[in-house]
């Protein structure tokens, strides 16, 4: 057996059946060799390793091949953004070489990155479009697939409305693909469009944006080399972002930096820390407030920073008062001395950075968790400088970009939201009328005691989140706040096993009229469903098979070049989205300003042209300066960028630019803004990459004094401004009106002024930096040393959120029922079109005695070899060999009490739906007593049953296993609908 970390040998025989035909039918190296006539007879020595081709030989001049071409693309797994250097001969990807010149990975990879070549040889890929006919997978043509899917979508639209089709996009899209998919949803007329950010960092985006302006990592992986203290919380970078550890360990070595890991599980990252702090899952706020308690009691806070740049810290302190060391130790399990030591280090050994991932975000209090961490960073003055900041490691290769492109239920591209001004802005960019866009949306009738919504109100209402698509399909129609329930799932590049409550999604899958899975691999949507008809599988290519840009976690944008043509009958995202739009009748409007080029199956949108359209509209987040030409120049001169500052070398073609033009990259490409390496950094001029906190929430706020009188408190910075600013204090966002008041409108060119006037109509003064399509307002503000979005304070009190000041709330399924009275879950509420019943579920759990019958906390996480739902990586033979079994980590105490031996099968059962999974036990001290951990990449087994037969023949991943989300449970963040993925209760018994 080969379960995690135990045995060194791969079990050979075990997967022989699954491996049958591993190299059949594909143009792998062997067939390549055969076709190129290079195989010399009699060389295949019996017993020699079965090697295929002669890449090196060919490269050295043997045979007829015409030499090897080197193509640079970006790894399609995590968000670090490692450059992949592909050697291509005769259209076949024959080798990978280290990309030494990339400042991000400097030639290196993790197991996934070092094996990506297999993805475009992968004989487990979907080879041609298919549909289910009475339960049988049947090959069809692309034309038939598009035509039938389109007809069905139009039928559903006529009967149930546009909102009945769910458009689930992907963090694997390029920026251009993500943007087109979001635009597609807008033209289709729904906000039911989402992607993996929902289940990875949606709460980060909400929490961080509500604190200081933008929902993104503030610094970069490289910048962590400057840190003197690094805290990881709920982040296992050694497995989830291995190449980032190159920078972190270098920083640890060079600066002798403190590396403190907070995690319920002693992770691979913790093994390299200077201090490991174990705490109970789901008590993050108590941990952070406990640290803050020590910081403020001892005066370790950064008083100047707080007074100049933070609003509402006094309000936060009122809450923090409650978290004395005894209380915190009781809630979290962290000894007082250890937490105090960590707090002191973080506050005093600066610069200090805080890194978090899904351990923080995937909770019913995810947004509040994030807000608490941001408050800690603000209190210690650890934002906006080199070596500090909120270093949020995102998950997928383009989850940052896809979020930026608005693949989200509440946003148009680049965070414009869904308000009328946002629709009008994008209408202008797209050159379509606001009325047309509005006409595409449903009218929602009054139901469930809620008033009716007209088209305008519906186009401004956030959609269903992907975490609850099955509730939207299954709940009584009255509870679902749209015209009708979901009837169609159109899924591009998203797994089905990454969302909790799989038993509920299995039921919903049977209810759908239409299920479309467009992906290189079939995904769990296919293996879980017991559908007979109305199900389509479309072979979509990976990003190695098309051109396009992707945004890494640090906001740097990298251009990837197509390595090979889409394999088999695969097509790229651009073409598929175009064909669907064409079938549905809005391609003419949607693609009117996008250049079409000849592709594999005919005309398709040119990614460069799509990026130019993004540049034309992306003012609010500075996605305007990153023209395809500039991005390609950066890829060509990767070696000219500094490893630590990411700045382009003097005298080089990329002089002064930050690598990948991390957004915001203000103004037009011609303005040559360098991008922003560190957000909110006042030590640089804004024109040179500096910034300030963004005043997004007004200029003043009315507060009530103790005596009941009202006072207006400023939300603008006081006594702090970016270097070189002509306004030496805080200021609001720039509009035409403000330019006029400052007398700076004279600096606008006539063309810029004309554009502003035409956008503004009767009220040109109201045109802001974010909707000015000329870029004039941004240019003039920058010219005067100012940040276009203003210079405000970050908020320790986010009054618009459900918990404006985070407060500890016991998880719905908590083992500490004694704490629920004092720290209850939120009251039941409705958010994002459906009910969110925190209290009902928590109460029911207590009444049913769940904590007694299911005494073990279950949490989940990543393995280095796999990613996401894992279909792609479990189909890769080099990776699959390394992790052949789904398993549960269980502590020796819990195992002994249950008579469980290491390596044996166990049943892990959950408290809802009588759910259970059959997995192998890995008995380890890595998890504490009363805690179990499972990786979330597995699928293809369901409650003990092998579902290999549900996959179309030849597309089943090599390794299958139970999904952890079969036993995970109810619980959703009130702001973003993020699921509770990290705390539930289970029972484990020998199988």
């Amino acid at each position, binding site marked *: 057996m080969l379960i995690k*970390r135990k045995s*060194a*040998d*791969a079990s*050979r025989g075990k*997967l022989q059946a699954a*491996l049958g035909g591993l190299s059949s039918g594909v143009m792998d*190296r062997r067939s390549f060799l055969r076709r190129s006539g290079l*195989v*010399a007879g009699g*060389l295949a*020595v*019996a*017993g*020699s*390793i*079965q*090697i295929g*081709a*002669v*890449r*090196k*030989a060919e490269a*050295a001049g*043997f045979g007829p091949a015409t030499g090897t071409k080197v193509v640079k693309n970006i790894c399609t797994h995590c968000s670090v953004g490692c450059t992949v250097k592909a050697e291509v001969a005769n259209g076949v990807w024959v080798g*990978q070489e*280290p990309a030494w010149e990339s400042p991000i*990975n*400097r*030639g*290196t*990879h*993790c*197991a*996934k*990155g*070092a*094996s990506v*070549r297999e993805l475009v040889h992968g004989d487990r890929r979907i080879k041609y479009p298919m549909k289910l006919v009475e339960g049988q997978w049947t090959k069809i043509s692309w034309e038939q697939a598009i035509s039938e899917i389109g007809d069905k979508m139009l039928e559903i639209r006529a009967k149930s409305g546009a909102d009945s089709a769910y458009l689930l996009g992907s963090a694997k899209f390029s920026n251009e693909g993500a943007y087109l998919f979001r635009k597609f949803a807008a033209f289709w007329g729904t906000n039911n469009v989402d992607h993996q950010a929902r289940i990875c960092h949606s709460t980060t985006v909400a929490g961080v944006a509500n604190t200081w302006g933008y929902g993104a990592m503030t610094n970069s992986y490289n910048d962590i080399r400057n840190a003197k203290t690094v805290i990881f919380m709920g982040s296992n970078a*050694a*497995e989830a972002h*291995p190449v980032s*550890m*190159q920078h972190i*360990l270098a920083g*640890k070595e*060079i600066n*002798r930096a403190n590396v403190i890991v907070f995690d319920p599980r*002693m992770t*691979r990252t913790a*093994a*390299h820390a200077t201090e490991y702090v174990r705490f109970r899952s789901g008590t993050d706020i108590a941990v952070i407030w406990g640290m803050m308690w020590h910081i403020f009691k001892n005066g370790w806070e950064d008083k100047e920073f707080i007074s100049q740049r933070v609003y509402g810290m006094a309000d936060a302190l009122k809450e923090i008062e409650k978290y004395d060391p005894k209380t915190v130790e009781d809630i979290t399990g962290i000894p007082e001395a250890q937490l105090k030591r960590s707090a002191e280090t973080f506050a005093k050994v600066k610069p200090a950075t805080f890194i978090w991932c899904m351990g923080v975000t995937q909770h019913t209090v995810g947004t509040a968790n994030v807000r608490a961490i941001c408050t800690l960073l603000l209190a210690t003055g650890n934002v906006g400088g080199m070596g500090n900041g909120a270093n949020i490691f995102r998950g997928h290769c383009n989850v940052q970009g896809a979020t930026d492109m608005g693949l989200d239920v509440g946003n148009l591209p680049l965070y414009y939201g869904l308000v009328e001004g946002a629709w009008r802005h994008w209408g202008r960019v797209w050159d379509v009328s606001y009325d047309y866009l509005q006409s595409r949306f449903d009218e929602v009738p009054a139901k469930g005691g809620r008033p009716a919504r007209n088209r305008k109100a519906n186009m401004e209402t956030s959609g269903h989140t992907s975490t609850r698509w099955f509730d939207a399909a299954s709940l009584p129609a009255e509870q679902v706040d749209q015209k009708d329930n979901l009837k169609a799932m159109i899924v591009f590049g998203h797994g089905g096993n990454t969302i909790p409550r799989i038993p509920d999604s299995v039921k919903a899958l049977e209810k759908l009229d239409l299920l479309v899975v467009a992906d290189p691999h079939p995904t769990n949507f296919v293996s879980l469903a017991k559908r007979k008809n109305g199900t389509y599988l479309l072979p979509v290519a990976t990003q190695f098979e098309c051109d396009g840009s992707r945004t890494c976690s640090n906001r740097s944008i990298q251009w990837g070049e197509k390595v090979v043509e889409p394999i088999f009958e695969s097509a790229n995202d651009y073409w598929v989205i175009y064909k669907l739009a064409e079938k549905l009748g809005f391609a003419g409007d949607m693609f009117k300003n996008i250049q079409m080029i000849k592709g594999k199956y005919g005309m398709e949108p040119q990614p460069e042209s799509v990026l130019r359209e993004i540049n034309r509209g992306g003012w609010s987040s500075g996605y305007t300066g990153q023209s395809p030409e500039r991005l390609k120049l950066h890829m060509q001169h990767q070696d000219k960028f500094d490893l630590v500052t990411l700045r382009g070398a003097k005298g080089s073609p990329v002089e002064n630019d930050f690598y990948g033009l991390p957004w915001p990259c203000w103004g037009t490409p011609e303005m040559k803004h360098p991008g922003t390496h560190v957000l909110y950094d006042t030590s640089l001029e804004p024109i040179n990459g500096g910034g300030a906190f963004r005043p997004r929430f007004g200029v003043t706020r009315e507060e009530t004094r103790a005596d009941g009188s009202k006072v207006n408190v400023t939300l603008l910075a006081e006594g702090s401004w970016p270097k070189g600013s002509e306004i030496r204090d805080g200021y609001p966002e720039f509009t035409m009106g403000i330019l006029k008041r400052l007398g700076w409108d004279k600096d606008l060119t006539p063309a810029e002024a004309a554009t502003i006037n035409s956008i503004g109509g009767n009220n040109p003064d109201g045109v802001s930096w974010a909707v000015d399509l000329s870029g004039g307002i941004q240019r003039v503000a920058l010219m005067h040393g100012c940040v276009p979005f203003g210079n405000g304070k970050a908020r320790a009190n986010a009054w618009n959120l459900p918990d404006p000041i985070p407060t500890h709330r016991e998880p719905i399924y908590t083992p500490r029922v004694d704490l629920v009275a004092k720290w209850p879950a939120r009251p039941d509420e409705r958010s994002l079109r459906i009910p969110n019943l925190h209290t009902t579920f928590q109460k029911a759990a207590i009444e049913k005695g769940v904590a007694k019958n299911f005494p073990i906390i279950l949490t989940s996480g990543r393995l*280095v070899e796999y990613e996401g739902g894992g279909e792609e990586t479990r189909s890769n033979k*080099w990776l699959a*060999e*390394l992790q052949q079994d789904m398993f549960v*980590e269980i502590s020796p105490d819990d195992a002994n009490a249950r008579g469980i031996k290491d390596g044996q099968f166990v049943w892990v059962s959950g408290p809802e739906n009588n759910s259970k999974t059959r997995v192998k036990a890995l008995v*380890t*001290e*890595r998890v504490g007593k009363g805690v179990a951990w499972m990786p979330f990449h597995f699928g293809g087994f369901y409650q003990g049953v092998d579902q290999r037969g549900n996959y179309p023949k030849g597309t089943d991943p090599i390794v299958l296993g139970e999904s952890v989300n079969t036993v995970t449970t109810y619980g959703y963040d009130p702001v973003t609908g993020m699921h509770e993925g990290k705390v539930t209760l289970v029972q484990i018994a020998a199988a």
Partner: protein
Amino acid sequence: MARMKFLCDADRCIECNACVTACKNENDVPWGINRRRVVTINDGKPGERSISMACMHCTDAPCAAVCPVDCFYVTVDKVVLHSKDLCIGCGYCFYACPFGAPQYPKVGNFGSRGKMDKCTFCAGGPEADLSPAEFQKYGSNRLAEGKLPLCAEMCSTKSLLAGDGDIIARIYKERVVKRGYGSGAWGWKTAYKETVAI
């Protein structure tokens, strides 16, 4: 001439397995053969450390000493290679090797092991450099192309070092001096009868 060695800096190794898949990718090593693997000690406990292991290309290699058909040879760079044409799959080298490097494809019935396979330091085999025959039997020959083994070149944290023993020892020494700790050059005493003095 250079004296090629491997050195794994256990304080940097995070068991990401890049070295393992890079090796598979570069040499098209089939399922079940592991020329390189990562071994973790104290797994899940304080003091957990991982080390990437493969054939260390020993000085006076014990595998060569026990081989009944004398199929091993040492290149000018001191890389220990073998001839699959001569190998009879007896398995003696596996018992002699202190690192568990030799691998066997287990072809056929009656428990026959098949020809031994192991890490070549990306230096191919006895056939002509960069020839199809060499690639088919032994995999890549990066040394002949002026490159180092891909496992080390792609190591995520630059933990695994490959190259001339003096140079990689110097890199490791500098690292240890700078950071103030080091678990030592694991396996060097056994493989090279020397260690890295700090």
